[in-house]
């Protein structure tokens, strides 16, 4: 199977691909998905036939006019509701490896054209109790199997796909913010005012990239389906220098952080994987491995901007440090 974007010299990632995580969806050259073969679009024909590969691996001939003009792996809002066939995406975050390098945050911000304070991925400092040892806690959207945000949406602007991903169509969103209040993980952000970047229409809007964003609508972490369609890892997983973030497919029971590929169930079993706030019953698709046998002392994470460090001032551990004058 031809891959237009082979990863440079990364044996493991290639193995991961060979395992078929991303299927053939984006593999075909030119790789645009067939927008759809809906009858209403068949009216405008160009007469020119093009051969394309369908998501389920069949070669079909379609009219050139029915192929969308979206760039590679970018799908229209309508198509983005379907999901990538036969996948159940899952993320595993190994807390014992995180040192608050914030590369995941930056990678995500760059890819989604987010401003300084707009973060789909947040790194929090969590101390579960006074005695407990604090740890760095990267927090994306959990793409719950019982997503409260999807249930409460009055227009279906936010939806759950067959592949487990929860996305937002900002062309459908009316900005009622009910989803923001119903999410127990504070995963969602809102575009409160107009920004110049919203006017940049050079890239057509797709819920899979959430670019360009729109005023008065919600945004959140999307698991980067555009990357998944190209057989790549989400931006946060790719950017992490420590390999904290594993990503993969539950159906195939495989996750990878780019440098090692492991069995998902084995990883959860061996390392005591858990889901955050399990008792709420939202059934997240993001698992955490507890912060035991850490690779770095917590303090390595203090090497960030003053402004970022200031965020953690209410954590008891940080209060103690401040009192002792160690900060």
């Amino acid at each position, binding site marked *: 199977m031809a891959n237009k974007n082979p990863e440079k010299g990364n044996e493991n990632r290639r193995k991961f691909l060979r395992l078929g995580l991303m299927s053939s969806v984006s593999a075909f050259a030119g790789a645009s998905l067939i927008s759809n073969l809906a009858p209403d679009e068949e009216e405008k024909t160009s007469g020119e036939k093009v051969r394309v590969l369908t998501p389920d691996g069949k070669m079909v001939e379609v009219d050139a006019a029915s192929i969308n003009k979206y760039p590679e792996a970018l799908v229209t809002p309508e198509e983005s509701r379907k999901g990538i066939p036969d996948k159940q995406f899952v993320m595993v975050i190994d807390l014992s490896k995180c040192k608050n390098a914030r590369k995941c945050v930056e990678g995500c911000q760059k890819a989604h054209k987010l401003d300084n304070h707009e973060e789909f991925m947040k790194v929090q400092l969590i101390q579960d109790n006074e005695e407990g040892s604090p740890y760095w806690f990267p927090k994306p959207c959990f793409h719950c199997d019982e997503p409260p945000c999807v249930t409460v949406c009055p227009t279906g602007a936010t939806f759950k796909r067959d592949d487990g991903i929860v996305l937002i169509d900002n062309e459908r969103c009316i900005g*009622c913010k009910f989803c923001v209040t119903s999410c127990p993980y504070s995963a969602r952000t809102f575009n*409160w005012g107009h920004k110049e970047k919203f006017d940049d229409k050079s890239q057509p809007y797709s819920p899979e990239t959430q670019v360009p964003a729109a005023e*008065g*609508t919600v945004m959140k972490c999307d698991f980067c389906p555009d990357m998944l369609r190209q057989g790549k890892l989400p931006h946060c997983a790719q950017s992490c220098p420590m390999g904290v973030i594993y990503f993969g497919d539950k159906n195939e029971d495989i996750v990878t952080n780019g440098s090692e590929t492991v069995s998902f169930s084995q990883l959860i079993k061996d390392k005591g994987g858990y889901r955050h706030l399990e008792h709420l019953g939202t059934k997240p698709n993001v698992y955490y491995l507890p912060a035991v046998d850490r690779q770095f002392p917590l303090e390595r994470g203090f090497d960030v901007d003053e402004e970022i460090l200031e965020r953690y001032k209410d954590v008891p551990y940080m209060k103690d440090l401040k009192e002792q004058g160690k900060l």
Partner: protein
Amino acid sequence: MDVVKRKKELVKEFSPLLEKSTKTSKIWVGFLIAIILVGLVAFVIQFRKGHIVTGMRDNVVWGIYIINFIFFVCLSYSGAFISGILHFFKTPWKNSVSRIVEVITVLSLIVGPIFILLCIGRLDRLYFLFLYPRIQSPITWDIIAIMTDLIGCFIYLYLTFIPDFAILRDNSEGQPKWRQKVYKWLAINYHDTETQREKLHKITRTMSAMIIALAIIAYSVLAWIFSLTVQPGWNSSIFAPYFIIAGLYSGISVIIIAMYLIRKFYHLDHYIRKVHFIGAGVILLVISLLYGYFTFSEYFSRWFSHKDADMKLLDTLFNKYFWEFIFANYIGILVPIVILFFKKFRTIKSITFAAVVAILGLYMNRYLIVVPTLETPYLPIQDTRPEYIHYTATWIEWSLSFAGIAAFILFFILIMRLVPIIPMSGIIDHEREEKKKKPRII
């Protein structure tokens, strides 16, 4: 004929209410319009610049708009509820207050939903609610409930107005042409014949029962917007009945205040008497006891079971919002109870004072339900931007809130110019009943 004569008398008696526009009333109307205009300016600014001009940010995404929304809509539901009960059970002294209640019901149901529109980031896409409706969403339920209630209340209010429109139509000699026309059109050929009267009574009675049921459903749906989420402080099974009681608490208080103001400014001491205040005061006492009980149960069970998220919320309430909490849930409940409990405190002025305290306390209580929960999510807010940590309403939000209140009062005044606030037909009905009863007693 006796009745015709009596009708004429009543029209004569009440016509100053409809026609009089004194200097003070003109100043008042001007003042209210000015407030509404400021609100409109604020709205234009918000519409053009987006919600960035409000105090709402990613954590507290719902601010005083939604509090105003709950407040007004609950007010309306309680108005419907009370008015339905007054009609259905043929309460003896209902006539003087029933129209006040009905007008409150409809007006607050017009003003309330405006505030939920202000919460919406993309007003230009509002029709998506109907284009892509999702029946699973509590917001859709709320839209259905509010619209049904609005239509129901309008029909009900209109039904109670018809006999008075007929009286005004028959006695409108010397009135401006447009008024005559309006009355004629609104009275839909009602001539107060025996059959017509009976039919109207029957319909109104059926409608009043339906309105009670509607109000209870609509209240519950409104409460569910909060209680169906998993957020600490919201996810509570008593929220629906709690909202009903809280709504009645504000509803009766607003009725008392309206009675006081109308009595004072329109010199209706003869119709709105102390007995009405005492009656409403006693109901307010019962409701305030219930409301206090619900509030206590709500916070007590959270405090006693001390789940982590609940404790964090209580921590916010007792530190950051200490005085607000004391005001809302101690002063706002205990002061009215004390005033209304002792007979010697029950004067018109003190009952009105209790109602004012109750309303302010209740508004603060709603604030403490909405904002602190959003400021205390499950995962701690770790941010350095003060506006993302703590919510403070901006002048835009306040001026729109005051514009809502001003619009409510202004519409009230305008309706009172169209129809007497004391139903004339009610007075006639009452006298008729008395006449029927008398021979039997003798």
